[in-house]
């Protein structure tokens, strides 16, 4: 009755073997490395790049212990941390700013292991050090921005068709246009519908006023906000690339949040500055029709025309700028700092995309002699960087921005513009930074807790249950092996609470073995033969094991669903730990017991510790 089928032994042995393969990479440690990535995402890596990297290193006598080419980046393994720092600056200098060179760590495990997909556990930020940011995206601003650009489109379309309207305004995301007559309203409505037919309209006639309300449908709002998040994600990606982080994680969380994890980043101030900068560039025309500085002095703001706003330039002078936006930073494909050959001033030259270039060409042609303002909006402060007079039509989409105070500023603004603009402003609402020494400390704390807890359990079990205790301990070790293997194979993020969960599941997993052992003792106490006791003990314990594990599983799942960050890490390990512990308690321990006792015809006594007979039944 206590025989396991041969396939069960085979299954167990295969699982153990596989687990060992997946656990192995965790023991090889890591080597310092540098990672080289092209700034433009998706750019392929060719052999000439590889060669130039190798040559650069060779020239300065740095030996690399391996070049690894992956889809979009190259990793160079080095011998020491000093070499790593030296190599980083050398390669960055030789490759120029088209590539990002970042510090990284590579597992020392042999190639055949990594080729099999066997990697060390993926450590969370609290174990490897780094920064975690949670950013809140202000989607209402994205809606407002889109509404503003729609309104601009309507204005020019209505003007083009010569339809009379008094006033086109917006309030948050509702636009309203006042028309001169009902006919013009219905004509105007059709024109607007031609531009975009996803609006809802509302006609209001009060006090001789003929008003058309244009309401953006929920569906459109949704797509606008979705697009805004996507654009922000992309922008952050670009900015993080500029920072040079080896394995960043950038992810949307919920509707309007973005998680950014930057492993190994020490300079949090710099990271925050680059991520937090919400600079956008806007090009608008200067309102020169009725520009009289004195009118707009403080307290007289009601004099500002409704279609215009007032901003200061770099020297503090006020400039009246039209509200209509000609172009925004989204149309910029590249921006580079430079020096104006004639004046020697620092400049930023920008390149516009196709649509941007054609708009720019048209606007400059139509407005020769007028002034165009370039506005930089940073941290909610709008500043007119420069407002040059348009001297002639500018085609080709190449624009030079003057008015930079020095070369450093030109570089900063170029970086900002190149890294893209944000569709909606963002704010850091959560920051978690863990220093590198702290990460190492946390690993050793978690590992120590697990090891000492484990040793204590071994002693207790062996003393109390003798041979069956040893079997329980072997089962528990196999369980630990499975759990670590599963965590490595799934590349689930291991955090400090996750390490605590490993320790905790060990303590909880022993419950299954205890239940089995106690049941077997019970059966012997009831006068059953050793063989029958084993068989019945396992059978009776199974239901209880299942019940108690499922209730813990419910708690684990809740933690997973509602938890975030480190707590999720705890939940993952807890849930996986329950699964592995059930497998090992049922299959593995039974197989060992059957292997030891199953073939013996006659057993007089099981070594399961002393059993005290009860005489009340």
């Amino acid at each position, binding site marked *: 009755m206590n025989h396991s089928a041969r396939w069960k032994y085979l299954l167990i042995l295969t699982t153990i073997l596989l687990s060992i393969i997946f656990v192995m990479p965790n023991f090889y440690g890591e080597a310092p490395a540098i990672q080289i990535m092209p700034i433009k995402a998706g750019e392929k890596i060719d052999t000439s790049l590889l060669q130039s990297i190798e040559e650069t290193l060779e020239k300065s006598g740095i030996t690399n212990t391996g070049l690894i080419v992956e889809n979009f980046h190259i990793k160079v393994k080095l011998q020491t941390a000093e070499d790593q720092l030296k190599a980083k600056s050398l390669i960055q200098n030789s490759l120029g700013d088209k590539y990002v060179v970042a510090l990284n760590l590579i597992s020392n495990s042999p190639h055949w292991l990594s080729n099999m997909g066997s990697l060390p556990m993926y450590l969370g930020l609290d174990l490897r050090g780094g920064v975690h940011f*949670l950013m809140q995206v202000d989607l209402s601003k994205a809606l407002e921005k889109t509404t503003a650009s729609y309104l601009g489109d309507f204005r020019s379309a209505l003007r083009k068709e010569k339809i009379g309207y008094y006033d086109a305004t917006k309030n948050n995301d509702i636009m309203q246009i006042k028309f001169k007559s009902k006919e013009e309203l219905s004509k105007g409505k059709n024109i607007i519908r031609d531009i975009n037919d996803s609006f809802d309209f509302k006609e209001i006639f009060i006090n001789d006023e003929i008003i058309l309300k244009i309401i953006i449908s929920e569906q459109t709002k949704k797509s606008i906000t979705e697009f805004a998040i996507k654009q922000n994600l992309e922008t952050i990606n670009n900015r993080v690339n500029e920072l040079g982080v080896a394995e960043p994680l950038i992810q949307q969380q919920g509707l309007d949040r973005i998680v950014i994890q930057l492993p190994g980043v020490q300079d*949090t*101030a710099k990271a*925050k500055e680059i991520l937090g900068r919400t600079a956008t560039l806007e090009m608008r025309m200067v309102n020169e029709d009725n520009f009289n500085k004195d009118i707009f002095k403080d307290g007289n703001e009601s004099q500002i025309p409704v279609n215009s706003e007032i901003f200061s330039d770099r020297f503090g002078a006020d400039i009246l700028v039209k509200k209509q936006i000609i172009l925004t930073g989204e149309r910029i494909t590249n921006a580079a700092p430079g020096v104006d050959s004639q004046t020697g001033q620092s400049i930023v030259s920008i390149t516009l995309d196709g649509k941007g270039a054609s708009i720019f060409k048209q606007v400059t042609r139509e407005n020769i002699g007028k002034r165009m303002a370039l506005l930089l909006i940073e941290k909610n402060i709008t500043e007119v960087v420069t407002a040059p007079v348009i001297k002639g039509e500018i085609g080709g989409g190449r624009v030079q921005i003057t008015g930079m105070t020095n070369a450093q500023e030109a570089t900063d603004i170029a970086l900002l513009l190149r890294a893209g603009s944000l569709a909606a402003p963002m*704010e*850091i*609402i*959560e*920051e*978690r*930074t863990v*220093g590198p*020494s*702290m990460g190492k*400390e*946390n690993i050793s*704390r*978690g590992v*120590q*807790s697990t090891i000492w*807890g484990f040793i204590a*359990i071994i002693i*207790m079990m062996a*003393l*109390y249950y003798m041979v069956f205790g040893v079997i329980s301990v072997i089962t528990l070790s196999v369980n630990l092996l499975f759990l670590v293997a599963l965590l490595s194979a799934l590349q689930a993020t291991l955090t*400090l*609470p996750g390490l*605590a969960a490993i*320790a*905790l599941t060990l*303590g*909880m997993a*022993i*419950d299954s073995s*205890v*239940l089995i052992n*106690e049941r077997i003792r019970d059966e012997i106490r009831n006068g059953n033969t050793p063989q029958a006791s084993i068989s019945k003990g396992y059978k009776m314990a199974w*239901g*209880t094991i299942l*019940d*108690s594990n*499922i*209730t*813990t599983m419910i*708690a*684990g799942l*809740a*933690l997973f*669903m*509602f*938890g975030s960050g*480190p*707590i999720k890490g*705890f939940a993952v390990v*807890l849930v996986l730990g329950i699964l592995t512990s059930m497998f090992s308690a049922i299959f593995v321990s039974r197989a060992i017991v059957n292997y030891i006792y199953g073939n013996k015809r006659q057993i007089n006594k099981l070594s399961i*510790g*002393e*059993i*005290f007979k009860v005489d*009340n039944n």
Partner: protein
Amino acid sequence: MEFFRVKKDIPFMKYSKISAVISTTAFILAVFFIIIRGLNLGVDFTGGTMMEVSYPKAANIDDIRQSLRDIDLEDAQVQNFGTEEDVLIRLPIREGLSIAEISEKVASTLKLSNDLMEVKRVESVGSQVGDELYEKGALAVLFVCIGIMLYLTLRFEWRFAIAAILANIHDVIIILGFFAFFQWEFNLTVLAAVLAVLGYSVNESVVVFDRVRENFRKMRKANVAEVINNAITRTMSRTIMTHLSTQTVVISMLIFGGEILHNFALALTIGILFGIYSSIMVGCPMAMWLGTNQTNLAITNPEKKKEI
């Protein structure tokens, strides 16, 4: 070795009235402290900034306080953390100062007076995140309670489900009571521990109930109290061994786990100790008083037919 050489079943249910008084008192005391003293919530929930910085030599707390006062952060709490070299700084949320700025401000100020200062850890949480955690935490607790009750109703019957969940809530409230009384910091990891206790401590009830159901089938002539007494006595050895093992690991965490895992382990310790007590002296009497008996268990037990 055998811990429990009991000849007769221990008459646990005889003491159920006393234990009810004890449990109720403990429960009310816990609620009292939670209301009067409140939980010492960590920045995870309240929002704010927590920084752990470390100096090569023993840190001068007064100097740190002074330099923070100089940059108008007089509401900063500064204290040693674990060792003399490590310092924990807490700052509430400030109007007009974003959470990203506040930690940089503190770090750069402290660096000025001592270049060797190292920032080991920063946790900065905005108020909206804290509020959400509150909400999510409560939802998680609710989800676990409902999930466990549903499962137990399916596997056993509703009387057991209610008894087990009451025993569980008793444990959780007492953990919170301890945290309120001693003003230990209640953060996200502690919440995880509380939820783990919810799942873990119900195990105890499940094991006993399992035995109770089995006993109803075997001990035809015994009354409900006797059946329960026997079930508890017979599972006693397992209870002690299992909890001893888990507790050993948790003690190991208390010793080696450092400051971050300290309160997590504390919550688990209280949860484990009271979990044993409550599943025996809260869950079982509760199931008894709710009217659990042979008939209502037999109906819900399909295995019974096979054995007759």
